[in-house]
């Protein structure tokens, strides 16, 4: 449905004209309003071997709206990918990120494009956050030459080197030593930048993670390991795979922070904190408590190992986009109607 809306010419032209007629983006100040705003995170941070950062996060209306807009875009993109996959226009693997958008968005807000990000195969939204376009995403998924990898990579192999996005990796856990290698090179080149190496709760038990973390700690590399804990490694719940599912503590001598991954502001705060820490003191682990609405991939219904109640419960209580919407409304930064038109357009 999302796709047909975009493809029909008349609705496209009216959709493009809408923001101008609404004068939403031109006249209303919220999109350019940079008055500082302080908002508390949903829960305080839990720390391991370090001082937790403050719960109060500095933000602006402009930033909040951009969070909303970008996350809504990501959500729509993943749902569209779902439809494309079912229509057999996307082949092979397709791992969707809807529910986890706050991690990608919050991270971008806390760092720069000179910092590096590397992740596993659930990479569509991370790529978008790094500056990739929807055209590049959908073309790549459908194997077309306008894709970010010219159709040669597929869903799991998106890259954007010019804005520090190093993929897109299909082998569980491999991206962690690679990320530590990026951090090594950043330190070697004296760039004063850091690398965020993202992985899931499934990958958190990989041996190469501990090998790389040991070297990163030994050599003081500016590497931040980010565990996107969506509580299921494919079909295996975290308590069935890990003796200790406190992933932020698994670094032992490496400091860690547990973060509400559904709260984009908490993610932003944690990433800013981690970057400062890594540049001075070496590696750190961030555990993002998050959730994926889809199954592991499009081949997995996602309901054989968890209840539908659990999924809908998270959607109701913790949805990241809903959280930002409520914040914007509570602080009177925009009206419901304005927000709806933004999420409809995803522009």
């Amino acid at each position, binding site marked *: 449905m999302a796709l047909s809306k975009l493809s029909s010419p008349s609705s496209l032209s009216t959709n493009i004209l809408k923001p101008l007629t609404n004068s939403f983006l031109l006249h209303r100040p919220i999109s350019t309003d940079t008055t500082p705003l302080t908002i508390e995170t949903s829960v305080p941070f839990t720390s391991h071997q370090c001082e937790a950062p403050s719960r109060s996060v500095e933000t602006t209306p402009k930033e909040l709206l951009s969070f909303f807009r970008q996350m809504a875009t990501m959500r729509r993109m993943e749902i569209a990918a779902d439809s494309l996959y079912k229509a057999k226009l996307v082949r092979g693997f397709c791992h969707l990120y809807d529910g986890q958008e706050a991690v990608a968005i919050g991270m971008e807000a806390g760092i720069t494009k000179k910092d*590096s990000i*590397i992740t596993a195969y659930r990479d569509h939204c991370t790529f978008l956050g790094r500056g990739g376009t929807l055209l590049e995403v959908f073309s790549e998924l459908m194997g077309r030459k306008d894709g970010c*990898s*010219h*159709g*040669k*990579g597929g869903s799991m*192999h998106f*890259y*954007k*080197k010019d804005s520090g996005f*190093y*993929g*897109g*990796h*299909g*082998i569980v856990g*491999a991206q*962690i*030593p*690679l*990320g*530590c*290698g*990026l*951090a*090594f*090179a*950043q330190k*070697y*080149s004296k760039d004063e930048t850091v690398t965020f190496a993202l992985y899931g709760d499934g990958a958190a038990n990989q*041996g*190469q993670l*501990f*090998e*790389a973390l*040991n*070297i990163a700690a*030994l*050599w003081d590399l500016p590497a931040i390991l980010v565990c996107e804990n969506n509580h299921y490694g494919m079909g295996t719940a975290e308590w069935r795979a890990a003796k200790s599912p406190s992933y932020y503590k698994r670094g032992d001598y490496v400091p860690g922070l547990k973060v509400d991954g559904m709260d984009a502001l908490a993610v932003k705060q944690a990433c800013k904190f981690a970057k400062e820490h890594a540049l001075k003191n070496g590696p750190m682990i961030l555990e993002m408590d998050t959730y994926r609405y889809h199954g592991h991939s499009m081949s997995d219904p996602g309901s054989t190992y968890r209840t539908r109640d659990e999924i809908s419960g998270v959607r109701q209580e913790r949805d990241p986009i809903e959280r930002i919407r409520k914040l914007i409304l509570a602080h009177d930064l925009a009206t419901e109607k304005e927000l709806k038109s933004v999420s409809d357009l995803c522009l």
Partner: protein
Amino acid sequence: MVLLLAVNMVTRAGFSLKQLKMWGIIRQKVAAGGGSPVARIRPVVSNLRNYSSAVKQMMVREALNSALDEEMSADPKVFLMGEEVGEYQGAYKISKGLLEKYGPERVLDTPITEAGFTGIGVGAAYYGLKPVVEFMTFNFSMQAIDHIINSAAKSNYMSSGQISVPIVFRGPNGAAAGVGAQHSHCYAAWYASVPGLKVLSPYSSEDARGLLKAAIRDPDPVVFLENELLYGESFPVSAEVLDSSFCLPIGKAKIEREGKDVTITAFSKIVGLSLKAAEILAKEGISAEVINLRSIRPLDRSTINASVRKTNRLVTVEEGFPQHGVGAEICASVIEESFSYLDAPVERIAGADVPMPYAANLERMAVPQVEDIVRAAKRACYRSVPMAAAA
């Protein structure tokens, strides 16, 4: 004449002929009228490079060391990492002196965690640095093979050119002496089957210098297969080879010895055995052409095929296991391109299809020997040969 005089004086000084041979004195090309006999005795106890002859001798170990040194000096992005490469001066002393010269930021001792440090090396290459990752032996590369193949070899293709990986993985490959099954495996065929990798294997010091420099300068991942038993061997090197800009092309084989009756292909240590076999064959009236592959991937199919079209007979020799080996690929290539030129079936000599035994006599039977190559060449020439001893 002068050489005989020198040998005479030296043997009288108490050094045996065997020792002279070991020190390469006998093999030295004598420069026309160069130096007095007395001057020639001195190098017997000291570094042979002080020898005042036109052609220098260089050990493979030194060739590799000098290549690393020169490339690190020329490009600040090149760095070396691996177990014992720094303070220990290298498990086989290949990286001797480099830590002192370039410091601990560029010569890094790693913990014994191949998967971790290889991944770190590949990540550094993604960012634009030029790592040289040393495996103490390639047997340990299996712990890191996912990074060599999935993270390094395939990334340029999967990213459609966005991510290039200018990394070199190097270390000793294949059989050493008495190290047993887990430390004697040859990985040439393993890595050479992977698109996205280049696989090189030097024989002489000239090969070692030229190919390692080429590998470090190459923008793609290169697997550089050395040989522990060659490290201590000396080869003559010309002034051109010693120059810091010297480089050999990747993908070109070298015809070590020209011949017209049978082509023998080999790489690494086996080239030496093949050359010895060629000497023996020459005495029996068979002129063997010995090709030093140098590059396993890309394989120099045109040189191999041109040679087979000339000689009409082929013997492939390798140390590794026979099934799906380098020789099998060469045979297939020759059959595809030069079938009608073959006058005899292709002979494939490889290591025995068994995990490498420890006992010296069994080990000797598990690895190709000079006699095996001679016998195979004779078979290819339809000469009658005695049956090999049952394994």
